[in-house]
């Protein structure tokens, strides 16, 4: 340490442990303090973002409910954890179920793409899609959320039997989308992630017209 403290005597183990514990305590207090101070804002931010996303992919929705598929049925949950068994149910102002916002993620061109799409079981149609996170090539792969033409593909898209990406301008069937020229892989990755989610939720969701039996836990 300082040059002049040559004859410093060896501190005892107690001193060492004490200083560590003290430091731990102080830092713990500081961290918990700032955590508590910011928690509300952070949670609010997150909830707001999520809600906005759900509202965007499910037009006409004004209320949402987070559900998790556990023990072979859908349960209402309020935690902030997200995993592949989570789904968001969207209701209109009258409280009628409009559809589900389904998140999923999977490999993209560069890194994992995570997205949220709106699905209306009655029509068996996809009504909106939002890319939550991706690292696709700027200017090319990032057209999966920047190219309005591509995004518009998902506004009214049949999911039967599966979604298929075709070369731009070749879209002919209701279950087809126009891929992005030059970013075919990214387009296909989006479709693939959606199809996987659709398969996963096909049997979990109540039949068209039915509302999920909900049980608060």
């Amino acid at each position, binding site marked *: *340490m*300082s*040059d*002049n403290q040559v004859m410093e005597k060896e*501190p005892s183990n107690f*001193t*060492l442990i004490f*200083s*560590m514990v003290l*430091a*731990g305590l*102080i*830092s713990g207090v*500081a*961290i918990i303090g*700032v*955590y508590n101070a*910011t928690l509300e*804002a*952070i949670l609010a*931010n*997150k909830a707001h*973002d999520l809600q906005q996303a759900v509202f965007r992919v499910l037009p006409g929705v004004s209320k949402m409910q987070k559900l998790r598929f556990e023990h072979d049925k859908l349960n209402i949950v309020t935690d902030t954890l997200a995993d592949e068994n989570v789904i968001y149910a969207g209701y209109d102002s009258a409280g009628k179920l409009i559809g589900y916002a389904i998140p999923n993620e999977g490999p993209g061109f560069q890194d994992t793409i995570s997205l949220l799409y709106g699905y209306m079981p009655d029509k068996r149609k996809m009504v909106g899609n939002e890319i939550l*996170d991706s690292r696709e*090539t*700027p*200017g*090319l792969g990032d057209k999966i959320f920047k190219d309005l033409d591509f995004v518009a593909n998902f506004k009214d898209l049949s999911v039967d039997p599966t979604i298929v990406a075709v070369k731009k301008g070749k879209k002919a069937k209701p279950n087809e989308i126009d891929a992005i020229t030059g970013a075919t892989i990214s387009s296909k990755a989006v479709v693939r992630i959606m199809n996987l989610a659709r398969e996963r939720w096909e049997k979990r969701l109540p039949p068209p017209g039915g509302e999920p039996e909900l049980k608060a836990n």
Partner: protein
Amino acid sequence: MKQKELDGYQEFMKGLWKENPTFVQVLGMCPTLAVTNSAINAVVMAVATFFVLVGSSFLVSALQRWIPSQVRISLYVIIIATFVTLADYSLLATLPAVHKQLGAFIPLIVVNCIILGRAEAFASRYPVKYAVLDAAGMGAGFFLSLTMLGTVREILGTGTLFDIPLFGKGFEPWVTMILPPGGFITLGLLLLLSNWVTKKRAEFLKQVAAAQQEGL
């Protein structure tokens, strides 16, 4: 305390150029390259690092009497990690969009060698005033280089600066610049430039000295 004569101004200025953490000491490369794909990210990262650097240097310097040397590194790390957590949560609460961009790299400030390096090499030996000035200088130097890198990469990579378009609609962006290879290459070229400037400066000073000799 017997100490080398310190000049606060010098301690601050050395971090800007002579001992610039990026260009001269080549420390903290990870955030330097990872978050400089846009100027705003670079600025936020640099500000967060500045905050952690100055805060931890202040604490380390202030507490130097009470820190047993045997456990000092662990204590420094705890201090730094605390500041980083503070910065992390504050950012998350106030600028969620930017925080999402920087993602995992904010926590990685903990292992930025500049901070631990300054704590160990400077803050733990000198009075608070100089420790803070030194840290601020280093932080400012880091800020400078990060911003420089972020600016170059954003301008070339997207044709914008702080999201403001600079060149009009027809500009063809240079996408690599905001991708990883662009990071490496831009920093490599900037280092090259800094080497060149240093060399030219040395040559110039030599010439001046020679001219003075001649004059005498």
